[in-house]
């Protein structure tokens, strides 16, 4: 900055305390690590999105004209691997969670700051391995790398991709470990479990899945890698091995992984809905414990991915019933959010628009999940676009909507700048329309019989595919917009006040952006979470603010 600005000297905060690349690469401040993650997961999101773009362009016409079958197989595999392991799983926990967990509970940092930095480096190493693997040959098995195709037949880079996921898995485990210890041991005086923001409860539940599920996919990858390199036969039916065992081990992690993606998003939406309806959340303890219930039940439903794989009908029956059971805590949340809205004083700011989007899309995604949990319908729509549409409603309509809502909600806290509200509302609308245009036609496509993972299709499916591709274009624009105006706001945005939304929660009681150790004085909590009635009545219990 060559010219001295006329405004008063900026308060010292975590962003301006030190400058230079090295100060970022060696930082152990959870807020800076969150920004490192933000940069990395955003890059991976656009790489994964690029693969999706080619897929949608190929499917514009019934013939295989843009890419050939082999390339197409690699495109959808790599779209899945990048989006699942390098965007969806780390997105909210590693960016918003990392930034907010210590702030929300009134701690100076996470319990293990160095391990937090290590987890980012592991993520980066895994991401580099994955990118290297992709651009030197790639993988064509689908992100599920089912055996024996992955171990005995395909000649693509399974081992390298597997190791990339293995390394990134440890990054995820370390994040979860750090959160659990932090939430148990680092809460400020007065911050009891029943006063924790529900964002924290959601991250606690997520962390449980991360630490108990991820090691299982790690050992599964090890087995696939040694089987492929040394020809062991653990999953090879020729030698008496059982490919179904692979599927069991794989989905034991990969189904709960869906909840790693959606639970943090639910936490974000809870915060937003309470703030923008200016009400205490309805049924706090139900929302809190439904997160834990989802984490627990989430571990008991994995075989619903295997109904047509040859498991016993009795097992299928049990897993079908349990899959219905996991819908109960999810529904509890939806009803509680709706009840919170009831008679609330609702503000339609951009974060709230995303939260509304989440509510509708998650409900559709969840209900179609119940269709899939029903054994008869499942047989009919297995491996069709119905399944593709269902999980995109959960992961993109749910998880990404929540992530974007959260980014808007906390952007003033993270950057110290306000984003342009008009553009943000427009972007939220574009994302919502683009999303539905992309994925709703896929429900119909799947139901009338178009299978997933094919690069050609009969001409009668073209109209719906064209709609879907058009929607993907709109969606892509909707995703680019926030990136542009967030970057713009960092330089030109208005300075954000400490609490622009007049929100409850400790993170709003410190400066924007916060100082390195978060609070100038250790906060003491004497109020319940979401005391919006009190705040709006003017009984503001302010913690002394920096300055």
């Amino acid at each position, binding site marked *: 900055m060559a010219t001295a600005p006329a405004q008063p000297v900026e308060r010292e905060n975590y962003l301006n305390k030190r400058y230079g690349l090295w*100060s970022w690469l*060696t930082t152990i401040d959870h807020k800076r690590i969150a920004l490192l993650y933000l940069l990395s997961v955003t890059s991976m999101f656009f790489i994964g999105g690029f693969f999706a773009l080619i897929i949608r362009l190929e499917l514009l016409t019934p013939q295989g004209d843009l890419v050939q079958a082999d390339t197409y197989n690699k495109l959808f595999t790599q779209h899945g691997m990048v989006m699942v392991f390098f965007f969806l799983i780390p997105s909210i926990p590693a960016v918003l969670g990392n930034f907010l967990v210590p702030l929300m509970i009134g*701690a100076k940092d996470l*319990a293990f700051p160095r391990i937090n930095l290590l987890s980012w480096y592991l993520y980066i190493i895994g991401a580099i391995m994955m990118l290297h693997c992709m651009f030197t040959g790639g993988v064509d098995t689908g992100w599920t790398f089912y055996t024996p195709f992955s171990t005995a037949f395909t000649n693509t880079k399974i081992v390298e991709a597997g190791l990339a996921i293995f390394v990134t898995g440890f990054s995820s485990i370390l994040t979860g*470990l750090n959160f659990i210890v932090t939430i*148990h041991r680092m809460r400020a005086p007065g911050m009891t479990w029943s006063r924790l923001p529900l964002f924290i409860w959601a991250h606690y539940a997520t962390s449980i899945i991360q630490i*108990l599920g991820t090691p299982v996919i790690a*050992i599964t990858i090890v087995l696939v890698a040694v089987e492929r390199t040394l020809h062991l036969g653990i999953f090879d039916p020729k030698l008496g091995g059982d490919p179904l065992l692979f599927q069991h*081990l794989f989905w034991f992690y990969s189904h709960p992984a869906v909840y790693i993606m959606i639970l943090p998003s639910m936490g974000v939406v809870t915060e937003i809905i309470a703030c923008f309806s200016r009400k205490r959340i309805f049924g706090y303890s139900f929302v809190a414990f439904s997160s834990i219930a989802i984490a627990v039940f989430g571990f008991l439903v994995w075989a619903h991915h295997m109904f047509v794989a040859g498991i016993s009908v009795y097992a299928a029956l049990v897993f079908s019933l349990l899959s219905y059971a996991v819908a109960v805590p999810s529904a509890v949340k939806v009803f509680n959010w709706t009840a919170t809205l009831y008679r609330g004083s609702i503000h339609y700011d951009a974060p709230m628009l995303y939260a509304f989007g989440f509510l509708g899309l998650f409900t559709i995604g969840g209900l179609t999940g119940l269709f899939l949990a029903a054994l008869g319908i499942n047989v009919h729509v297995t491996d069709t676009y119905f399944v593709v549409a269902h999980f995109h409603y959960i992961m993109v309509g749910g998880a990404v909507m929540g992530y974007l809502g959260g980014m808007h909600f906390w952007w003033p806290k993270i950057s110290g700048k306000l984003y342009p509200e008009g553009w943000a509302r427009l972007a939220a609308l574009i994302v919502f329309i683009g999303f539905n245009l992309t994925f709703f036609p896929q429900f119909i496509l799947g139901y009338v019989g178009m299978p997933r993972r094919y690069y050609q299709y009969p001409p009668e499916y073209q109209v719906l595919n064209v709609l879907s591709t058009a929607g993907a274009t709109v969606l892509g624009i909707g995703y680019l917009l926030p990136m542009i105006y967030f970057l713009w706001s960092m330089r030109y945005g208005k300075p954000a006040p400490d609490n622009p939304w007049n929100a409850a929660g400790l993170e709003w009681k410190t400066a924007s952006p916060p100082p390195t150790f978060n609070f100038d004085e250790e906060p003491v909590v004497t109020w319940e979470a979401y005391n919006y009635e009190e705040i709006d009545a003017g009984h503001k219990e302010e913690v002394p603010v920096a300055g």
Partner: protein
Amino acid sequence: MPDSSTALQTPTHGHADDPALLHHFAEPEQQRNAASLGMWIFLATEVMFFGGLFCAYLIYRLKYFGEFAAASQTLNWQLGTTNTAVLICSSLTVVLAIYGAQRSKRALMIGSLVLTIILGFAFLGIKADEYAEKFEKHHVPGPSFQFAEKIPGHPDQMADPNHAQIYFSLYFVMTGLHALHMIIGIGLFVWLLVAAVKRRFTPHYYTPLEMGGLYWHFVDIVWIYLFPLLYLIDLRK
């Protein structure tokens, strides 16, 4: 302790008298509890990591019990028993090292740490000897795998070499990952030994020793399960 110029070193304040207290903890007790909880959670992830293998073992042992018993009998149970004893002794020396730190018995602490490392190497040496034998007998899974043994209790029935190969696959993956954990553990204890020699541990601060000990005991317990599952399936002749 003044603010350091490198970003990785954390400034301390408040408890300037306690160099081991990191900046973001209010008191040593909180820091110790955090480390301990973190270690237990890490061990939970380790349980799940090995859990996948135990699950595979369970399924194939039920499916191919005859071959598992036949393959198990080719292992050297005397060496396995010796290694079990070696590991149990090493767990004792770990506990003695922590006791030494708590009671300021420096010689006991350092001696026990050295003994632990020696016992760790002894275990790995014996394990390497067993592995070498597998190579000689062509019991290593892969293209050159051979297995021509009868199923115990069924003198007229040969074991299916493919199924025996699954046993040896699991044997090598399970004991191999266990050995890898042992190697990491030895590295950890060399580091702890250096710290102990540099007088880093006091009766008030010995958290790293305790955490290293937890890890070592865990690796020990994994072996306690592996030993009967792999070596003692069916000893009746």
